[in-house]
């Protein structure tokens, strides 16, 4: 027995000894970080390249798992489109309940869409800043000074683009450069006012370094930076500064692949098979069937497909009747400028009864373009024979008109919601290119609704029309007229760019005839022999201004720009139109359009001095603990 005890004592001592060993072995708690890389591992050329790609990948606003794609999409269809007179929300009235308040200007700062868009932009900005912060950490000699500088220039370009997005939404936004980070604790950045100077500085710096061509077309070049610098000046109302840049772009500008800027077939800009053409000053690249399950497709537009031909969801972003009306032209093939005050029956909040009100409508709204609102499939409908700008049928789908190669558009039969007749088209893919240009997996519930249709953040006609604006504001009306006509002439001189009837209405795959699908007519300003004369010089600056602005409305409709242009032109923030211009346009649109009952818009209005800007997200105001200020009147 005694011997046994001593054995146990030895055992115990051994155990204690082992414990001591283990305790000394402090490495037990050192567990590696798994499934991720550290900043040090990325300190090389390939790491830097990767961070820059990561920053580019946020240009579309979307990052898998982080945002709801349609709240952050780079084309701003909600904020620039539905929030303006371009389009209705679409779908059922209550589907996506945060959008109606954006559409009818009753938005409050807690609307989740505000926070998503804001956050997505700053995400992109910090990814760009990560590139800038990484360059000095690279010590392995793999990155030359020039290479590093160019990476920084591309990063500053992306940072500028995203600050530009923020500035046009909210105007008063924090400027976040590479010195701002979580670890330095200085991230509660205030928003005392516009940051145009800082945006301009980023683009100026980028221009100083970026080459005129790039080996990869997705990268920003010198001209892309120059065009964005011009855009910043346009929003800053510095026309004299913008003009020489825009002139240079029109004379020398080229895409990253070296193609000189030029106007080609209008529809090519919205056709995935003709991506990165000579009109793309800077395009956000959308890819499909790339192994990501559709995540890099044009996710922002995933809801924006007519319900008809694809037997699919979701029927959002329906072009407004007012937008359709805008394509009506006069006998000269020119837009119906000017306004008329008329009495309209405006729907009340009960969506049933109406009240007679006075409205100063654009002339094109006085007699609306006929559509199939309220008709069923079996009711006969003949598309109207009004003379129309041919861009209409590449911009919105109307019943009875060829809808790409999907067949004759079913109008209201194809739409999902309660009030709409027109269907979006610029974001829609061609049936015959479905396999190559769409992803069968986007979001699971929306097969083929993720496309590889790029989005042009700046499209060449925009450069030309900004140029026209600058010429108007600096007194050179003839030059402005030439610019506008250059844009119009693309369609005027090329009837082959128009929509044509199908060879066989029942089999669109057989192609198109040479017969225009509707009564298209597009003329040029100032043509000889017209009465009254339509020249800008003859009619003066205000006519010229209206004509330029109208041209931007028509050319760029359904591209998410309208809201921001109206804001930019409003005198409230220094624009050339009267203060309250934007409110007038929107309020008259609501009155004109609510001649049909639209439960979202009925009895709502746009408040001047408030709704030109979106409300700073309440969540961010709370989180910044007093540093961030709300926009006026919210």
């Amino acid at each position, binding site marked *: 027995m005694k011997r046994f*005890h001593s054995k*146990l004592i030895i055992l*115990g001592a051994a*155990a204690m000894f082992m414990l001591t060993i283990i305790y000394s072995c402090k490495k*037990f708690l050192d*567990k590696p970080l*798994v*499934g*991720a*890389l*550290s900043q040090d*591992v*990325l300190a090389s050329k390939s790491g830097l390249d*990767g*961070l820059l*790609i*990561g920053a*580019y*990948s*946020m240009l579309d606003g979307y990052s*898998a*798992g982080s945002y709801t794609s349609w709240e952050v999409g780079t084309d701003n269809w909600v904020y620039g489109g539905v929030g303006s007179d371009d389009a209705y929300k679409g779908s*059922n009235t*209550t589907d996506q309940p945060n959008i109606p308040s954006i559409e009818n200007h009753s938005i*409050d700062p807690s609307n989740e869409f505000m*926070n998503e868009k804001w956050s997505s932009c*700053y*995400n992109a900005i910090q*990814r760009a800043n*990560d590139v800038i912060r990484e360059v000095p950490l690279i010590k392995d000699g793999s990155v030359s000074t020039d290479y590093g500088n160019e990476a920084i220039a591309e990063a500053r370009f992306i940072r500028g683009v995203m600050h530009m997005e923020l500035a046009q939404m909210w105007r008063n936004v924090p400027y*976040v450069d590479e010195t701002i980070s*979580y*670890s330095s604790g200085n*991230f*509660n950045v205030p928003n005392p006012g516009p940051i145009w100077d800082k945006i301009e500085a980023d683009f100026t710096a980028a221009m100083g370094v970026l080459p005129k061509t790039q080996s*990869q*077309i997705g990268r920003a070049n010198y001209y892309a930076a120059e065009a964005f610098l011009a855009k910043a000046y346009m929003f800053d109302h510095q026309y004299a500064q913008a003009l020489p840049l825009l002139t240079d772009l029109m004379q020398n500008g080229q895409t990253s692949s070296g193609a000189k800027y030029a106007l080609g077939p209008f529809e090519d800009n919205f056709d*995935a098979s003709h991506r990165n053409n000579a009109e793309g000053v800077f395009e956000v*690249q959308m*890819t*499909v069937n790339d*192994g990501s399950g559709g995540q890099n497709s044009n996710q922002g537009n995933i809801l924006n497909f007519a319900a*008809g*031909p*694809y*037997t699919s969801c979701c029927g959002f972003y329906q072009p407004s009747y007012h937008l359709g009306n805008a394509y009506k032209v006069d006998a000269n093939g020119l837009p119906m400028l000017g306004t008329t005050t008329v009495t309209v029956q405006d729907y009340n909040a009960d*969506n049933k009864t109406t009240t007679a009100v006075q409205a100063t409508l654009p002339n094109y709204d006085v007699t609306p373009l006929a559509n199939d609102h309220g008709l069923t*499939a079996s009711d006969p409908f003949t598309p109207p024979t009004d003379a129309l700008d041919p861009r209409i049928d590449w911009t919105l789908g109307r019943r009875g008109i060829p809808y790409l190669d999907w067949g004759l558009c*079913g109008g209201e*039969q194809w739409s*999902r919601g*309660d009030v709409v007749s027109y269907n979006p088209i610029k974001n829609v893919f061609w049936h015959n290119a479905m396999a*190559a240009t769409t992803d069968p997996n986007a979001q699971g519930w*929306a097969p083929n609704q993720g496309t590889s249709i790029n989005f042009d953040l700046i499209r060449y006609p925009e450069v030309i029309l900004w140029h026209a604006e600058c010429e108007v504001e600096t007194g050179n009306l003839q030059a402005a007229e030439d610019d506008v006509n250059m844009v119009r002439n693309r369609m005027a001189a090329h009837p082959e760019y128009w929509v044509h009837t199908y060879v066989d209405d029942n089999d669109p795959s057989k192609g198109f005839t040479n017969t225009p699908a509707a009564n298209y007519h597009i003329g040029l300003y100032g043509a000889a022999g017209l009465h009254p004369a339509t020249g800008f010089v003859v009619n003066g600056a205000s006519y010229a201004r209206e004509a330029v602005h109208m041209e931007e409305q028509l050319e760029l409709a359904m591209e998410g720009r309208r809201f921001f242009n109206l804001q930019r032109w409003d005198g409230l923030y220094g624009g050339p139109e009267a203060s309250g211009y934007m409110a007038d346009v929107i309020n008259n649109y609501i009155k004109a359009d609510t001649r049909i*009952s639209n439960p979202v818009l*009925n009895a*709502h209005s746009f408040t001047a001095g408030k709704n030109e800007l979106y409300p700073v997200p309440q969540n*961010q105001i709370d*989180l*910044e603990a007093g540093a961030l200020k709300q926009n006026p009147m919210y």
Partner: protein
Amino acid sequence: MRKKLTLLKSGFLISAILFSNLLFAQNQLTGTVKDENGKALVGVTIFVRGTKVATATDANGSFNVTVPKNRPVLVVSSVGYEPQEISVNGLTEIAITMKTSVSTLNTVVVTGYGTQKKKDISGSVAIVDVGDAKKIPATSTEQLLQGQAAGVTVLNSGQPGGSSTVFVRGISNFGQTQPLYVVDGVQVGDMSNLNPNDIESISVLKDAGAAAIYGISGGNGVVVITTKKGRAGKATISYDGYVGTQRPLSGNVWHIMSPAQQSEVAFRANDVATEGLYPGGAGIIPTYGYHGAPAAGAFGIAGVTNDDGILQYYKFDANNPGNDFLIQKFATGQGTDWFHSIFKPALEQQHTLSASGGNDKSTYFFSANYVNQQGTMLNTYEKRYAIRMNTTFSVKNHVRFGENAFVTFKDNNGGYNGSQQNEGGSIAYTYREMPIIPVFDVAGNFGGGYDGPTGEPLGNGSNPYAIQARQKNNRAHFVLVQGNVFAEADVLKDFTLHTSLGFNLYNQYWYAFGYNTYENYESHASPNGVDEEEQYSTQYNWTNTITYKHSFGKHNVQVFGGFELKQSGGRQFHASAQNFFSMDPNYVQLQFGTPVNAPLSYIYQPTATESFFGRLDYTYNDRYILGATVRRDGYSIFYPGHQWGTFPSVSLAWRVTQEDFMKNITWLNELKIRGSYGEAGNNLNIGGANAYNAYASGTGSSYYGIDGNSSSITQGFNQSQIGNQKTTWETDKITNIGLDATLFNHLDITAEWYKKAIGGLLFPAGAAATVGGASLPSVNIGDVQNKGLDISITYRDRLSKDFSFRIGTNITTYQSKITYEPSPGYFDFGYSRDLDIVRNQVGHPIGAFYGYKVIGLYQSNTDAAKGATYSGAAAGSFIYQDVNKDGKIDANDRTWIGNPNPKFTYGVNLSANYKNFDLTVVLYGSYGNDDFNYVKYWTCFYSTFQGGKNIDLYNKAAIVQNGVVTNPGATLPAANFNQAFGSSTVSSFYVENGSFLKCRVAQIGYTINPSILDKVGIDKIHVYVQATNLFTITKYSGLDPELIPSISNNGTGNYQSAAFGIDYGAYPTNQKQFIFGANVTF
């Protein structure tokens, strides 16, 4: 198996021979049993230890028994008296006096790393009566805890195998609040898979005095479980089993109106688009709905018709949904009862066979368990096969070793795609799918929102029958191996060394099929597909302790020290493919389809915990008790410098009744007053990369098509995690004051008051978006304080020789209050389609509901214009309280509208024995909790999506004419779709009293007379019939007021406890169940 038993039996035989002095000799013994007052006791059980020989005293208290010479010990027991073991070697007559049992003071209670006699415990330990608890048939064993221990709150899910939410003394953080489970000394994540029949004891350690010995893991409380061990003596073989049926809730559970009523409401609402569904006018349901392309004859793309001629055009093309032309015949009358299309009565059975026994050198316990619970919901089930083997072996008298091992194989259909408590769950679709839609279309394919007019008048719901039917071939398989091997040695006189290597190995494989959901509007053309996933995880605990026990004079000392290492890790793999030629489950393999994404794998963050701990228990004169513990833990996830923490506790107790001055107070048998203070921690709510700035790469998050090619992308990186090196654990400071008393020999009372202050809550603190898109680190923000009372009272008595009973009640109260959060002092949580439902704000309880307060309905447009206004206010819309009295209703007028935390929860356990009959009733209740009935968002308002609508919308909604409500008694907003804010926004309208009382168990059993059984070699047969959830008393209008946290809390499942008590359509746990069962012992 047979061979093994034989071996064990022969081992038993050999040991019996070795121990015997005389073989096979017997003597007759007669005796009497009386109580302390000399009164004869009836029905006292007497059995001869180590034999089957047993008898009971007769009406005179007399008995007669044959005692083998080699088994000369009697075990005498009776309810309410202290059991005795009496050596009767050579006696032929004996008089036995039974002492009234002074409660359960000498019960050995399992506590942290050891056992203590109940009388010596100074901390707060709730003991679960396993016998009562086991009566609740449950596939998730956590359900056993419900209502069984004061201080423990359990929320159950009715889903077969669905996990319960357990918290001890209130919800103590915003994330994972489950207690630590320790099974046979091994720290594991849950107890859901254990076989209830294997459980020997369950103790819940609630205060720091008891739980702080678990340090960083003890903050949420600790549930210590031991499983059965064999005992030296005769082998016992027993069978426990039951079969039964579970009945779904009956009636119109969602209070859904009929299709005809719904059409009338559409016309009232002047909903032009939906009126198109009813061309015959209000109340007239068309015969067919159709949709498809190309158009068929004159019928067009989509619409409704009464013309049977349409049937000839029906076309279903599984391979090309674009060619479909589908037709469904609308349901009339009450319409489709979607709930009962998927809820049917279901069978359930459970069988356990166990064997235990041993000798002085070795013991064993073995059990085999089979569970098959069919869910009442179509194609849900849980099948489980489990084996346990617990053995111990002794080497001489000083060294013991052994193992506890538990192996489970589990099989269910995973519940994937059908997860409940979520507006996308199939239960939610039983109210979201319109009753006009038939289960099947005219050709027997599924009916749905697709077949009808465009413009989606048939809503955006899904056919819940289709969802569940499609789960038929889904499978999930789990293998769990859990247990430990241990060795123990007594050294010198007073020391015991113990080492244990615990393991917890888990493997899961599942596959789930996706089908083309042609019946749905939104995904008519979705491809079929399959997802497969495998994961494994491993966890090891290595525990080494040394215990010193010594008594001298009136001093009793026990000192204990330990060292522990814990390590975990694992991996997961997932792949998917779609577009299969056939969805035959015997055919589908990933490579036969087209891949969707690249396969994914995840490495689980490995974690390591290193710990030193010690404990001192000192008792003086059996009346003054001191307990002190300290633990030092290091945890790998925290950054060096913040990895190590120390958790001390001290507890004191005074057994007042041991004092001389108390000796005369006879009605008070026992009174102990105790108090404790200490700290424990919690480290569950933190991710592996928390301390680091980490970068990652993802095709959808950081790749980009930089080269302009429409289908190629270039790899990119993005910061995925922002690091915080200062983060450390949550600290729970717990104060506990309690008393244990036994009165009148019959009444046990334990009452405790506690305060639990939890500091440094781990939560990803919000930071302005200017920091970028990387995940924010969890940091120590926020403090929460819970205060409450735990009370348990047990009364037991024997009224006659035939009748004895016991009543146990326990009550748990807690008040939760958030005491600190950084600016802005709150965060919002809890998904709704409008606003978040929950605001967690300083000064308010965790999970409080926050929204507008409804104070009435505007009776006219004039009133609406006069009152505090909001956009859309009109006759027949809600009047909201203008909280800040600024004349308008906006976000600033939101206020506190409900509290999901109950004021108290309670359990009542009744048991009674009359002759051979026994009765058990278990009641469980919750009082004072609010439920947020989010179902009403879908069913009570016209402005929300089309779907099943509540009959109240037909009967009780305001009807507005010319700007005036014409039915002034209306309680619901007018049926129109322009009033989203004035109706469906988050408001007090949804908040209901969630109090309930459930009769969880009512059981009647009968024990067959042993004398009859003796002949067939059976010791005991107990048979019973039982009803579960016989009644639920509640005012709640949903299915069941008992709600597990939802899985759709903004998608961040890790932060469940920040929002709970919200009903999106939970699987009800109050379904009635009737079972027949038997316990047989051989």
